């Protein structure tokens, strides 16, 4: 009898303990993508008129396969088409890269590296752990996407993928270096419940929360 009571007793305790969930369901966490934007706050975005961006191709930074530097296909088409629509709506004009564009618009996916930095509850601290970021000069600008020794993100974050967007000032070069004046991170792409739809929303959100990008 005593043994039965003790067994019953511990069963109740175990049931109570098991009933305590200590983290949210992943499907709830990834319902929307997190969108972070950063910019050089002295930039006059109205001073730019044109931009260049390769269509249907975006860059790829992936530590598992460093030689896999480009993404083509439906996802790349979606990203570049959404960017073009957004930039056109703002009032910028897309031109070819040999037509001296004022801005270069880069898009690439960073996989298995951490790009979100110092995100705090109810606060936005900014801060960056690696790679290129607003205020940083590219050592030289050779083209778009993928093949110019892309960023050296320092911290690994396995099984993550982040879409990175960058606006690079080609109009005001300094010693042949060019300045990143704006960037955006959107993720996570791998766990998203609707990668294509949520990517479109994330790109639109990136520009929405950057009202200084205007003509």
């Amino acid at each position, binding site marked *: 009898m005593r043994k039965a009571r003790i067994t019953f*007793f511990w069963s109740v305790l175990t049931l109570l303990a098991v009933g305590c969930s200590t983290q949210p369901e992943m499907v709830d966490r990834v319902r929307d993508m997190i969108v972070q934007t950063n910019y050089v706050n002295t930039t006059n975005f109205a001073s730019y008129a044109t931009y260049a961006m390769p269509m249907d191709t975006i860059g790829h930074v992936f530590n598992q396969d460093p030689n896999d530097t480009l993404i083509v296909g439906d996802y790349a088409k979606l990203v570049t088409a959404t960017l073009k629509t957004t930039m056109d709506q703002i009032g910028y004009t897309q031109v070819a890269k040999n037509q001296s564009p004022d801005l270069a618009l880069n898009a690439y996916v960073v996989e298995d590296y951490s790009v979100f930095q110092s995100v705090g509850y109810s606060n*936005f601290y900014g801060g960056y752990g690696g790679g290129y970021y607003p205020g940083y000069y590219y050592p030289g600008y050779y083209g778009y996407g993928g093949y110019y020794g892309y960023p050296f993100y320092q911290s690994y974050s396995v099984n993550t993928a982040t879409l990175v967007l960058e606006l690079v000032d080609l109009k005001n070069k300094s010693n042949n270096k060019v300045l990143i004046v704006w960037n955006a991170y959107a993720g996570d792409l791998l766990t998203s419940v609707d990668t294509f739809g949520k990517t479109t929303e994330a790109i639109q959100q990136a520009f929405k929360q950057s009202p200084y990008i205007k003509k």
Partner: protein
Amino acid sequence: MKRLFLLTLFLPVAWCQAQSDSPLGRYIGVSWNMNKPLSNSAFVSDFSTQGLQFIYREGINEHFSVGADLNYAVYKGYTPRKTYYGDSGALTTDYFNYVQSFGLTLTGDYLFSSDKKLVPFAGLGIGAAFADFKTYYNIYSKTDSSWGLLVRPQAGVIYRFGRSNNWGISAAAYLDYTTIKSSDFDFNNFNSAGIRLALLFLNVE
């Protein structure tokens, strides 16, 4: 604080050398605790039904019992998706906030009428609290933890099913005052109110 935690664990045993003729005797219990945060509601505000407690008491005499309570609770909060702006950028996300709280108190109860089936009591517990804070945003998370002092006034009733039956149930209300804090989450002196429903095993030998 960790020493206090261990002290509260062993002091009741050392203090109660022998079991008295208290009608409840030595008893243990498990309870389901429901809690409502009273502070730091920007981080966690939801009424929590995810709490449990282990109760241990030694009857000193007809009116007093002392022992220890070990409790655990999970508090949750959700901050809907919004955009936070800084000097050089912005961030849009929602947050799922969690606090896992542990407490161990040395507790003394005054029993108003221990010889009856229904035993009202009031008590005070003092001990240590530990909390683990975590906020989730998309696949990312941030965590912090803290130790603090815990003071718990409480009052309730114990119902015995019969003099020859060693089972009982208990209902009680309590307030938890702690010095738990986290600078990372702007979290200070986490306090909560709660009620508990307990199953008791009385006159344990």
